[in-house]
Protein backbone atom coordinates (compact mmCIF):
# COMPACT_ATOMS: atom_id res chain seq x y z
CA UNK A 1 0.00 0.00 0.00
CA UNK A 2 1.21 3.47 -0.87
CA UNK A 3 2.54 5.33 2.15
CA UNK A 4 1.11 8.77 2.79
CA UNK A 5 4.55 10.36 2.61
CA UNK A 6 4.59 9.87 -1.15
CA UNK A 7 1.21 11.54 -1.71
CA UNK A 8 0.85 14.68 -3.75
CA UNK A 9 0.58 17.70 -1.45
CA UNK A 10 -3.07 18.27 -2.35
CA UNK A 11 -4.00 14.65 -1.65
CA UNK A 12 -2.07 14.77 1.62
CA UNK A 13 -3.85 17.97 2.59
CA UNK A 14 -7.31 16.57 1.90
CA UNK A 15 -6.36 13.40 3.74
CA UNK A 16 -5.13 15.32 6.80
CA UNK A 17 -8.34 17.34 7.09
CA UNK A 18 -10.45 14.27 6.31
CA UNK A 19 -8.67 12.17 8.94
CA UNK A 20 -9.25 14.86 11.57
CA UNK A 21 -12.97 14.79 10.83
CA UNK A 22 -13.19 10.99 10.56
CA UNK A 23 -11.39 10.20 13.81
CA UNK A 24 -13.29 12.82 15.80
CA UNK A 25 -16.57 11.53 14.36
CA UNK A 26 -15.67 8.06 15.62
CA UNK A 27 -14.76 9.41 19.06
CA UNK A 28 -17.98 11.42 19.38
CA UNK A 29 -19.97 8.38 18.31
CA UNK A 30 -18.74 6.67 21.48
CA UNK A 31 -20.94 9.06 23.47
CA UNK A 32 -24.15 7.68 22.02
CA UNK A 33 -26.12 6.07 24.84
CA UNK A 34 -23.54 7.40 27.35
CA UNK A 35 -24.19 11.15 27.34
CA UNK A 36 -25.64 12.88 30.43
CA UNK A 37 -29.11 13.06 28.80
CA UNK A 38 -30.66 11.51 25.72
CA UNK A 39 -30.92 15.00 24.18
CA UNK A 40 -27.14 15.27 24.41
CA UNK A 41 -26.77 11.82 22.81
CA UNK A 42 -28.62 13.19 19.80
CA UNK A 43 -26.64 16.44 19.74
CA UNK A 44 -23.28 14.66 19.82
CA UNK A 45 -24.41 12.10 17.23
CA UNK A 46 -25.52 14.94 14.92
CA UNK A 47 -22.14 16.59 15.27
CA UNK A 48 -20.39 13.27 14.64
CA UNK A 49 -22.45 12.74 11.49
CA UNK A 50 -21.64 16.24 10.23
CA UNK A 51 -17.96 15.43 10.67
CA UNK A 52 -18.38 12.06 8.99
CA UNK A 53 -19.96 13.80 6.00
CA UNK A 54 -16.98 16.16 5.77
CA UNK A 55 -14.61 13.19 6.06
CA UNK A 56 -16.34 11.36 3.20
CA UNK A 57 -15.93 14.32 0.86
CA UNK A 58 -12.31 14.85 1.85
CA UNK A 59 -11.24 11.20 1.72
CA UNK A 60 -12.98 10.65 -1.60
CA UNK A 61 -11.22 13.70 -2.96
CA UNK A 62 -7.84 12.59 -1.58
CA UNK A 63 -8.29 9.25 -3.34
CA UNK A 64 -9.30 10.97 -6.56
CA UNK A 65 -6.29 13.30 -6.53
CA UNK A 66 -3.97 10.43 -5.66
CA UNK A 67 -5.22 8.58 -8.72
CA UNK A 68 -4.36 5.12 -7.40
CA UNK A 69 -7.94 3.87 -7.35
CA UNK A 70 -8.50 4.16 -3.59
CA UNK A 71 -11.98 5.28 -2.58
CA UNK A 72 -13.23 6.68 0.74
CA UNK A 73 -13.74 3.21 2.22
CA UNK A 74 -10.26 2.03 1.23
CA UNK A 75 -8.78 5.10 2.90
CA UNK A 76 -10.92 4.88 6.03
CA UNK A 77 -10.72 1.14 6.61
CA UNK A 78 -7.59 -0.21 4.95
CA UNK A 79 -4.90 2.08 6.34
CA UNK A 80 -2.94 1.39 9.53
CA UNK A 81 -2.35 4.02 12.17
CA UNK A 82 1.00 5.19 10.75
CA UNK A 83 -0.79 6.14 7.54
CA UNK A 84 -3.33 8.38 9.30
CA UNK A 85 -2.57 12.10 9.20
CA UNK A 86 -4.93 13.45 11.85
CA UNK A 87 -3.70 15.60 14.72
CA UNK A 88 -3.46 13.77 18.03
CA UNK A 89 -6.12 16.03 19.58
CA UNK A 90 -8.93 14.15 17.85
CA UNK A 91 -7.74 10.66 18.81
CA UNK A 92 -7.28 11.08 22.56
CA UNK A 93 -9.98 9.36 24.62
CA UNK A 94 -13.19 11.24 25.36
CA UNK A 95 -12.57 11.49 29.09
CA UNK A 96 -15.54 12.90 30.98
CA UNK A 97 -18.07 15.26 29.40
CA UNK A 98 -15.97 18.32 30.28
CA UNK A 99 -12.91 16.88 28.51
CA UNK A 100 -15.00 16.23 25.42
CA UNK A 101 -16.46 19.74 25.52
CA UNK A 102 -12.98 21.27 25.95
CA UNK A 103 -11.82 19.34 22.88
CA UNK A 104 -14.96 20.32 20.96
CA UNK A 105 -14.38 23.98 21.76
CA UNK A 106 -10.75 23.85 20.64
CA UNK A 107 -11.41 21.83 17.51
CA UNK A 108 -14.63 23.41 16.30
CA UNK A 109 -13.19 26.92 16.79
CA UNK A 110 -10.20 25.78 14.70
CA UNK A 111 -12.40 24.19 12.04
CA UNK A 112 -14.52 27.33 11.89
CA UNK A 113 -11.48 29.44 10.96
CA UNK A 114 -10.23 26.70 8.63
CA UNK A 115 -13.41 26.42 6.60
CA UNK A 116 -13.89 30.17 6.57
CA UNK A 117 -10.44 30.48 5.00
CA UNK A 118 -11.17 27.67 2.52
CA UNK A 119 -14.30 29.46 1.27
CA UNK A 120 -11.97 31.37 -1.06
CA UNK A 121 -9.78 28.40 -1.97
CA UNK A 122 -8.86 28.16 -5.64
CA UNK A 123 -9.73 24.46 -5.42
CA UNK A 124 -13.47 24.12 -6.21
CA UNK A 125 -13.91 20.89 -4.21
CA UNK A 126 -12.38 22.39 -1.06
CA UNK A 127 -14.27 25.66 -1.49
CA UNK A 128 -17.54 23.79 -2.05
CA UNK A 129 -17.04 21.65 1.03
CA UNK A 130 -16.15 24.70 3.08
CA UNK A 131 -19.36 26.46 2.07
CA UNK A 132 -21.44 23.62 3.50
CA UNK A 133 -19.20 22.75 6.43
CA UNK A 134 -18.75 26.24 7.82
CA UNK A 135 -22.44 26.34 8.76
CA UNK A 136 -22.24 22.93 10.43
CA UNK A 137 -19.13 23.88 12.34
CA UNK A 138 -20.60 27.20 13.48
CA UNK A 139 -23.20 25.12 15.30
CA UNK A 140 -20.59 22.72 16.72
CA UNK A 141 -18.70 25.71 18.08
CA UNK A 142 -21.82 27.20 19.59
CA UNK A 143 -22.75 23.88 21.21
CA UNK A 144 -19.32 23.51 22.81
CA UNK A 145 -19.31 27.17 23.85
CA UNK A 146 -22.66 26.86 25.61
CA UNK A 147 -21.39 23.92 27.64
CA UNK A 148 -18.02 25.43 28.51
CA UNK A 149 -19.82 28.56 29.75
CA UNK A 150 -22.30 26.60 31.84
CA UNK A 151 -19.79 24.19 33.33
CA UNK A 152 -17.04 26.79 33.80
CA UNK A 153 -19.31 29.40 35.34
CA UNK A 154 -21.49 26.85 37.16
CA UNK A 155 -20.87 25.23 40.52
CA UNK A 156 -17.48 24.84 42.20
CA UNK A 157 -17.43 21.22 41.13
CA UNK A 158 -18.40 21.86 37.51
CA UNK A 159 -15.85 24.69 37.31
CA UNK A 160 -13.07 22.46 38.63
CA UNK A 161 -13.92 19.69 36.18
CA UNK A 162 -14.21 22.10 33.23
CA UNK A 163 -10.79 23.55 34.04
CA UNK A 164 -9.39 20.01 34.39
CA UNK A 165 -10.84 19.18 30.96
CA UNK A 166 -9.14 22.21 29.43
CA UNK A 167 -5.86 21.28 31.15
CA UNK A 168 -6.09 17.81 29.67
CA UNK A 169 -6.60 18.82 26.03
CA UNK A 170 -4.41 21.93 25.86
CA UNK A 171 -1.08 20.15 25.15
CA UNK A 172 -2.68 19.01 21.89
CA UNK A 173 -3.69 22.45 20.61
CA UNK A 174 -0.36 23.66 19.14
CA UNK A 175 -0.34 20.80 16.64
CA UNK A 176 -3.37 22.26 14.87
CA UNK A 177 -1.33 25.27 13.82
CA UNK A 178 1.96 23.62 12.85
CA UNK A 179 3.30 24.59 9.40
CA UNK A 180 2.12 22.37 6.55
CA UNK A 181 3.09 21.92 2.91
CA UNK A 182 2.46 25.20 1.14
CA UNK A 183 -0.35 25.07 -1.38
CA UNK A 184 -0.76 28.80 -2.06
CA UNK A 185 -4.30 29.83 -2.81
CA UNK A 186 -5.57 26.29 -2.26
CA UNK A 187 -4.84 25.32 1.34
CA UNK A 188 -5.22 27.48 4.43
CA UNK A 189 -1.97 28.35 6.20
CA UNK A 190 -2.49 26.80 9.66
CA UNK A 191 -0.51 29.48 11.46
CA UNK A 192 -2.70 32.20 9.92
CA UNK A 193 -5.79 30.63 11.52
CA UNK A 194 -4.46 31.03 15.01
CA UNK A 195 -5.07 34.71 15.85
CA UNK A 196 -8.83 34.54 15.18
CA UNK A 197 -9.02 31.16 16.96
CA UNK A 198 -7.22 32.65 19.96
CA UNK A 199 -9.54 35.65 20.10
CA UNK A 200 -12.57 33.39 20.22
CA UNK A 201 -11.06 31.05 22.81
CA UNK A 202 -9.96 33.94 25.03
CA UNK A 203 -13.45 35.40 24.97
CA UNK A 204 -15.17 32.11 25.85
CA UNK A 205 -12.72 31.11 28.58
CA UNK A 206 -12.93 34.54 30.15
CA UNK A 207 -16.72 34.46 30.24
CA UNK A 208 -16.56 30.89 31.58
CA UNK A 209 -14.25 32.09 34.38
CA UNK A 210 -11.65 29.54 33.28
CA UNK A 211 -8.04 30.22 32.36
CA UNK A 212 -6.15 29.10 29.29
CA UNK A 213 -3.71 26.40 30.40
CA UNK A 214 0.02 26.78 29.76
CA UNK A 215 1.12 23.17 29.38
CA UNK A 216 4.79 22.23 29.77
CA UNK A 217 4.73 19.83 26.82
CA UNK A 218 2.99 19.65 23.47
CA UNK A 219 2.03 16.88 21.09
CA UNK A 220 3.79 16.50 17.77
CA UNK A 221 3.75 14.36 14.68
CA UNK A 222 0.12 13.46 13.95
CA UNK A 223 0.39 14.93 10.45
CA UNK A 224 3.45 12.69 9.86
CA UNK A 225 1.70 9.52 11.03
CA UNK A 226 3.04 9.55 14.58
CA UNK A 227 0.17 8.85 16.95
CA UNK A 228 -0.68 8.07 20.53
CA UNK A 229 -1.36 4.50 21.57
CA UNK A 230 -5.07 5.33 21.54
CA UNK A 231 -5.45 5.58 17.77
CA UNK A 232 -4.74 1.88 17.21
CA UNK A 233 -7.54 0.88 19.56
CA UNK A 234 -9.94 3.30 17.90
CA UNK A 235 -9.05 1.95 14.45
CA UNK A 236 -9.46 -1.64 15.62
CA UNK A 237 -13.06 -0.90 16.47
CA UNK A 238 -13.74 1.32 13.46
CA UNK A 239 -12.12 -0.95 10.88
CA UNK A 240 -12.98 -4.37 12.26
CA UNK A 241 -16.13 -5.01 10.24
CA UNK A 242 -14.72 -3.87 6.93
CA UNK A 243 -11.54 -5.88 7.37
CA UNK A 244 -13.42 -9.01 8.44
CA UNK A 245 -15.78 -8.76 5.47
CA UNK A 246 -13.91 -6.90 2.71
CA UNK A 247 -16.23 -5.32 0.19
CA UNK A 248 -19.35 -6.12 2.20
CA UNK A 249 -22.36 -3.92 1.44
CA UNK A 250 -25.80 -3.59 2.95
Amino acid at each position, binding site marked *: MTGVRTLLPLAAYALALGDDALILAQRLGEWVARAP*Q*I*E*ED*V*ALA*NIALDLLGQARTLLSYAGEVEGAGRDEDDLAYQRDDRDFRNVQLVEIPNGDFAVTMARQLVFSAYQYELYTALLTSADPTLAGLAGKAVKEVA*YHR*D*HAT*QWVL*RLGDGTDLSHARMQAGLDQVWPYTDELFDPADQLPGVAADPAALRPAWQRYITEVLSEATCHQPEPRWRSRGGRDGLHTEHLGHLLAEMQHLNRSHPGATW
Partner: protein
Amino acid sequence: MNDDSKRGWPLWEVFVRARRGLAHQHVGSLHAPDGAMAVRNARDVYTRRGEGVSIWVVPSAAIVANNPDEKDSFFDPAADKVYRHPTFYDVPEGAKHL
Protein backbone atom coordinates in the same frame (compact mmCIF):
# COMPACT_ATOMS: atom_id res chain seq x y z
CA MET B 1 -37.70 23.99 39.69
CA ASN B 2 -35.97 22.72 42.82
CA ASP B 3 -37.66 19.36 42.53
CA ASP B 4 -36.73 19.25 38.86
CA SER B 5 -33.11 19.99 39.53
CA LYS B 6 -32.91 17.06 41.91
CA ARG B 7 -34.29 14.73 39.28
CA GLY B 8 -32.34 16.23 36.38
CA TRP B 9 -33.09 18.92 33.86
CA PRO B 10 -36.53 20.59 33.65
CA LEU B 11 -38.96 19.71 30.90
CA TRP B 12 -39.64 22.03 27.95
CA GLU B 13 -42.45 22.01 25.38
CA VAL B 14 -41.23 22.50 21.83
CA PHE B 15 -43.06 24.37 19.05
CA VAL B 16 -41.79 24.35 15.47
CA ARG B 17 -42.91 26.48 12.55
CA ALA B 18 -42.54 24.51 9.35
CA ARG B 19 -42.28 27.54 7.06
CA ARG B 20 -43.05 31.22 6.84
CA GLY B 21 -46.73 32.04 7.18
CA LEU B 22 -47.68 28.98 9.18
CA ALA B 23 -48.24 28.92 12.93
CA HIS B 24 -45.87 27.21 15.33
CA GLN B 25 -47.07 23.68 16.06
CA HIS B 26 -46.44 21.70 19.21
CA VAL B 27 -44.12 18.85 18.28
CA GLY B 28 -43.12 17.33 21.62
CA SER B 29 -41.05 17.96 24.70
CA LEU B 30 -37.51 17.51 25.92
CA HIS B 31 -35.19 18.11 28.87
CA ALA B 32 -32.66 20.93 28.99
CA PRO B 33 -30.88 22.89 31.73
CA ASP B 34 -32.20 26.25 30.46
CA GLY B 35 -34.03 27.91 27.60
CA ALA B 36 -30.98 28.57 25.43
CA MET B 37 -29.98 24.90 25.61
CA ALA B 38 -33.58 23.81 25.11
CA VAL B 39 -33.67 25.64 21.76
CA ARG B 40 -30.46 23.91 20.71
CA ASN B 41 -31.67 20.50 21.85
CA ALA B 42 -34.93 21.09 19.99
CA ARG B 43 -32.95 21.90 16.86
CA ASP B 44 -31.12 18.57 17.21
CA VAL B 45 -34.10 16.44 18.17
CA TYR B 46 -36.95 17.91 16.11
CA THR B 47 -35.45 19.63 13.03
CA ARG B 48 -32.86 17.11 11.86
CA ARG B 49 -34.70 16.48 8.60
CA GLY B 50 -35.51 20.06 7.65
CA GLU B 51 -38.81 20.22 9.53
CA GLY B 52 -38.68 23.86 10.50
CA VAL B 53 -37.52 27.44 10.19
CA SER B 54 -38.36 28.63 13.69
CA ILE B 55 -38.41 27.06 17.16
CA TRP B 56 -40.12 28.13 20.37
CA VAL B 57 -39.59 26.45 23.72
CA VAL B 58 -41.74 26.96 26.81
CA PRO B 59 -41.14 25.54 30.28
CA SER B 60 -43.68 22.76 30.71
CA ALA B 61 -44.31 24.08 34.20
CA ALA B 62 -45.54 27.39 32.71
CA ILE B 63 -48.43 25.76 30.91
CA VAL B 64 -51.81 26.17 32.58
CA ALA B 65 -54.29 23.49 31.56
CA ASN B 66 -57.97 22.96 32.21
CA ASN B 67 -58.96 20.52 34.92
CA PRO B 68 -59.78 17.13 33.33
CA ASP B 69 -62.49 16.59 36.01
CA GLU B 70 -64.37 19.60 34.62
CA LYS B 71 -64.42 18.20 31.10
CA ASP B 72 -68.22 17.91 31.03
CA SER B 73 -68.94 21.48 32.05
CA PHE B 74 -66.15 22.80 29.89
CA PHE B 75 -66.87 21.10 26.60
CA ASP B 76 -70.23 19.37 26.51
CA PRO B 77 -72.34 22.56 26.30
CA ALA B 78 -70.75 23.30 22.89
CA ALA B 79 -71.99 20.02 21.48
CA ASP B 80 -75.62 21.02 20.73
CA LYS B 81 -75.16 24.65 19.59
CA VAL B 82 -75.43 24.05 15.88
CA TYR B 83 -76.09 27.76 15.31
CA ARG B 84 -72.49 28.45 16.27
CA HIS B 85 -71.32 26.66 13.16
CA PRO B 86 -71.30 28.80 10.01
CA THR B 87 -73.50 26.34 8.13
CA PHE B 88 -76.42 28.73 7.47
CA TYR B 89 -74.68 30.71 4.74
CA ASP B 90 -74.58 29.94 1.06
CA VAL B 91 -70.98 29.67 0.07
CA PRO B 92 -70.39 31.34 -3.30
CA GLU B 93 -69.10 29.00 -5.92
CA GLY B 94 -65.41 29.37 -6.48
CA ALA B 95 -64.65 30.46 -2.90
CA LYS B 96 -61.99 28.06 -1.74
CA HIS B 97 -60.32 27.33 1.58
CA LEU B 98 -63.28 28.34 3.76
